[in-house]
Each structure stands twice: as structure tokens, then as C-alpha cells.
């Protein structure tokens, strides 16, 4: 009897230890990656990085054009993807809550949410780059927008479904038309949650590399022409890190540090926004 008890206790202790170890392992990866990034990237951080163009190997330079390129394409992608995502999410939560269409769209949207981003790159290459005959920032932005849409659809639908029905009913009781109620009552209540969705989408696309490789490609020089290839931080990191030149690799680390800090900051802000919703 006491043998059985002891073996049960032993097993329980072992499981506790293992779960502790697993959590420790998970957390240590985060610490390890951040530490290496800071270690390798921080020394390269200077004003130069933000003011000069990507250099040819062997000379000094910065990351200005990829940073600007990333910002431009991210903003374009959000500008294209957010309205579509919000409208689609609105249909699912407000108009077609019990539709067959809604459940199909939800299913497909969930698939798109985790579809391999390189496949999205291939798709945009086929519909935009190949017919147009050249790589362009537009194509890059569309590829990123296709990643934004499912994220925004998901959060918009979830947030609108959380808006309480009595609120809608009281607005309808005043005789307000449906579109007005959605825009001025439901959106207002769900605003913080929807903003969280957009921020998460931005965090997601600012590190995306694969879909940009053959849509926006890359550009060694300063360019704000949306119809031409455009540099972006992730693609420059990809190219520089795999190059044999040490100063390029150093810049890649610095770029990696910048992206990671930006993405982590965005996801923390998104969390803060989502948490602030619950206060009032």
C-alpha cells in the first residue's frame, strides 16, 4: 500500500519536474534569442543605420532604404487589407450571423490565416508580377495585404460578436438604420479589439520575408517608386545574412534587432489595447 502511494507520488513529482523543465526550456529560448540579437545587433546600432543606404560590400552604410521600404509596403498593405477585413468581419457578425456563407467564410479564413506565406507570394507573383513583367512594391503590398485580411477578419468578427445585443436592440428601437447602428454603435464598442487585430496584423507582416522575395524583390538604392522593386528589411536581412561579407552580416544582425524590437513592441501594445477594453 505504501509502495503504491510512494510510486504515485514519485510519478507526480516526475511530471511536475518535467513540466517545469519544459516551461524553463521554452522561456530560455526566448531569452537566448533576444540575448544573441542584442549582443550581435546592438553594437551595429548607430545613426548611420537610419540615415544611409544599404552599402556595397566593403563600405559603410545603413538600412535607410529597406526601413522606408518596409514602412511603405506595410502601410499600403494595411490600407488595402484592413477595410476588406473589417467589412468581411462585419458581414459575418452582423448581417450573416447564421448564414451558411458565414461558416464557409470562417472556415476558409482560418485556413488562410495559417496558409504558408510563400504560397501567397507565388500567387501574387502569378497574378501581378508575371503579367506586369516586373517586380514592384505594389505586388509586395498586395501579398502582405492578403496576410493582413484573415487576421483582421478574425478579430473583427470575434469583437463584434462580443457586442451585447441589448445595445443593438436599443439603437434599433430608436429607429436607426442597421448600417448606422453598426458603424456608430457596434464599431465604437468593438473599437479597441478591432485595433488590436490591426496591430497584430502589422506585427505579423513586418517580419514576413517569403512573400516579398518574389513580389517586391529588393533594391539596393533609394526608391519610393511603387511600380518598381523595393527594398524591405526582412529581404535585406535574408540577402545580407547569407552573403559571405562580414560587414553585410553585421548589418543583417542590426536589422534583425530592429525588426524584433518593433514586432515585440507592437504585440505588447496590442495586448495593452486589448486589455484596456475591459476596464470601463
Amino acid at each position, binding site marked *: 500500500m505504501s509502495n503504491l502511494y510512494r510510486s*504515485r*507520488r514519485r510519478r*507526480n513529482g516526475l*511530471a*511536475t519536474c518535467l*513540466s*517545469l*523543465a*519544459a*516551461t524553463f526550456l*521554452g*522561456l530560455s*529560448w*526566448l531569452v537566448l*534569442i533576444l540575448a*544573441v540579437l542584442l549582443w550581435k545587433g546592438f553594437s551595429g546600432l548607430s545613426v548611420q543605420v537610419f540615415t544611409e543606404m544599404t552599402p556595397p560590400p566593403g563600405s559603410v552604410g545603413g538600412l535607410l532604404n529597406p526601413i522606408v521600404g518596409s514602412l511603405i509596403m506595410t502601410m499600403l498593405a494595411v490600407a488595402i487589407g484592413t477595410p*476588406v*477585413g473589417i*467589412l468581411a468581419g462585419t*458581414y459575418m457578425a452582423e*448581417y*450573416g450571423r447564421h448564414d451558411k*456563407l458565414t461558416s464557409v*467564410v470562417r*472556415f476558409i479564413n482560418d*485556413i*488562410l490565416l*495559417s*496558409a*504558408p*506565406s*510563400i*504560397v501567397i507570394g*507565388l500567387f501574387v*507573383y*502569378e*497574378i501581378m508580377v508575371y503579367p506586369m513583367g516586373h517586380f514592384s512594391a505594389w505586388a509586395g503590398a498586395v501579398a502582405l495585404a*492578403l496576410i493582413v485580411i484573415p487576421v483582421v*477578419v478574425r478579430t473583427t468578427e470575434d469583437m463584434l460578436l462580443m457586442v451585447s445585443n441589448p445595445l443593438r436592440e436599443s439603437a434599433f428601437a430608436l429607429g436607426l*438604420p*442597421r*448600417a448606422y447602428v453598426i458603424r456608430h454603435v457596434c464599431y465604437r464598442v468593438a473599437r479597441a479589439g478591432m485595433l488590436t487585430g490591426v496591430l497584430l496584423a502589422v506585427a505579423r507582416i*513586418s*517580419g*514576413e*520575408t*517569403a512573400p516579398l522575395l*518574389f513580389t517586391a524583390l529588393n533594391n539596393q538604392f533609394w526608391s519610393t517608386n511603387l511600380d518598381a522593386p523595393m527594398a524591405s528589411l*526582412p529581404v535585406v*536581412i*535574408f540577402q545580407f*545574412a*547569407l552573403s559571405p561579407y562580414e560587414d553585410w552580416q553585421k548589418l*543583417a544582425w542590426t536589422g534583425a534587432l530592429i*525588426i*524584433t524590437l518593433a*514586432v*515585440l513592441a507592437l*504585440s505588447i501594445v496590442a*495586448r495593452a489595447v486589448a486589455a484596456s477594453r475591459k476596464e470601463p
Partner: protein
Amino acid sequence: MSAADSFSRLAVFRRLRSRDAVFRILTRTSALGVLMVLGSAIVVLVSGALPALRAFGLAFLTTEMWNPVTEKFGALAPIYGTLVTSAIAMTIAVPVSLMIAVFLTEICPMRLRRPIGIAIELLAGIPSIIYGIWGLFVFAPFLQHTLQPFLIELFGPVPVLSTLFAGPPYGIGILTAGLILAIMVLPFIASISRDVFEAVPPVLKEAAYGVGCTTWEVVRYVVLPYARVGVIGGVMLGLGRALGETMAVTFVIGNAHRVSGSILAPGTTISATIANEFTEAVGDLYSSSLIALGLILFVITFIVLALARYLLMRLEDRVAP
């Protein structure tokens, strides 16, 4: 009330109604747009892959040869690499992330649950290119000098395992890619499992504790069986991610188009092949073959993700009412 007044009231009413209709149509079109994206992606990929599929037929799936010069292409090596790296990733990530979820729901003190949960989720937010550069410059050299020589030494005399761990230790290769994928999918599986574990009715757990079960026995005989469907869904979701992951793998897999018995050898995956070769692909047959690879990847991940969503949806149905 004058006639003009009621007329204008009617006009206002009409205007509101038409705006209402416009907004409704707009939202419906967007929702249909989401469907169209997936639909057209499939159509576009199939039509792009058609030349290659026509030239090589079903043998495309079973040929190892990948030669741009003679324009002979086969997808066996990338498919093999994709499946093996994902298998390695899941073998490691599933038990570890389940134990993390157990820790977060059953053992961890309340006050630490949120911060640790957030830290694990931040791990999921780190862009894959960061894992790539970290894997290439830090993780692969580390493996080359420690784990890989050890594995070669350890399994050298064992008959079957010696081919699986045949040297030399390159550092980069299928095992390294699998390990990095494991780290990348771990937070996904962990956070879904945590959510699923939390959905287990407390009454069930309390009953088990009440008859004197240990924490581990509660997890093993109450939580895990109850949450099984959801956990499998989460695992499939992680698998979908591992199959399609591109940048991290591209950095460390070594990009060799061959099927090797050793997991220490360099290999390639579908996504790594596309990422590496697509912009350099000259000739219609070459790029069409790469698009065919993309189509294969899409089909595989589609099946896996659809299954995952189906399982998770079934769980939601059970929890909701």
C-alpha cells in the same frame, strides 16, 4: 404637417435605406472576396503548375532528380525533406508544449500564469527570419560542435541508427531545421493546449482531486482525455505551420536536392526550394516546376489545417452550449 415635410421625410428614409443596402452589399462582397482569394489562389497555382505536371506526370512526385540544366525536375527530395523536418519538429514540440500547458494550467502559481503565458506567446511572435539568422550563426555551429558529434559517436555502433545519424557533422542539415521548427511551433501548440485545458470543467477536476488523485493523475486521466480533440487540433495547426515554414528552414537546411538516409545530412524542403530558386528560375518548365512544388505544399497544408480546424470547431460546439 405639410406635404413638403413628409416628402422630405420620405427622401431621408429612402436615402437611409439605400445607404443601408450599399453597406450590406459592401460587407457581403468583402466576405465573398475572402472566398475568392482562396479559390483564385488554387486556380492560379494549378494553371501555373500545369506545364510541369504535363511534362512529368505523376512521376514528378516520385523522382529525386532536380536538374535545371537538363530541365528534369522531380519533387521527391523537397517533399521528403518537408515531411522529415516536420516529423522531427513535432516529435520534440508536442511533448514539450503539452508539459508547458500542464504547467501553466495546473501547477504554476496564479500570479505567474499571465506573465509566463505572455512570454511563451511572444516566442510565437518573433519573425521567422530571426529564427533563420539565429539558427545559421548561433544554433548550427553549436550543434556542429556538441550534439552532432555526440550523436554520431553514440549511435555509430548501433545498426539502424548509425545510418540515421551518419556523419560528418555539418551543423546545418535536416536535424537542425527540425530542431528550429520545433522551437517555432512550440508556442502555438502550447497556447492552444493551454486554452483547451482551461476549458475542462473544474467540476471534473475537483471530483478527481476529491477522490485523492495526484496532480499528474488528474492531468493524465481527466484533463487529457477530455481535451484530446482540441489538443489534436492544436497539434495539427502546429504541423501546418511546420510544413509551410520557409525562412528559418531556408537558412539551415543546406539546400541539397537529395534524399539521404541520415538526418544530419543537408536536404531541402518545398518552401526552401521555392525561396532559393524562384527568382533565378529561367525557362518556363523550371518556374512551373517550382509552382507545382508550391501547389503540393498548399494541398498538404490545406488538408492538415482543414483537419485541425474541423477538430477545433467540434470542440467549440461541445463547449459552447
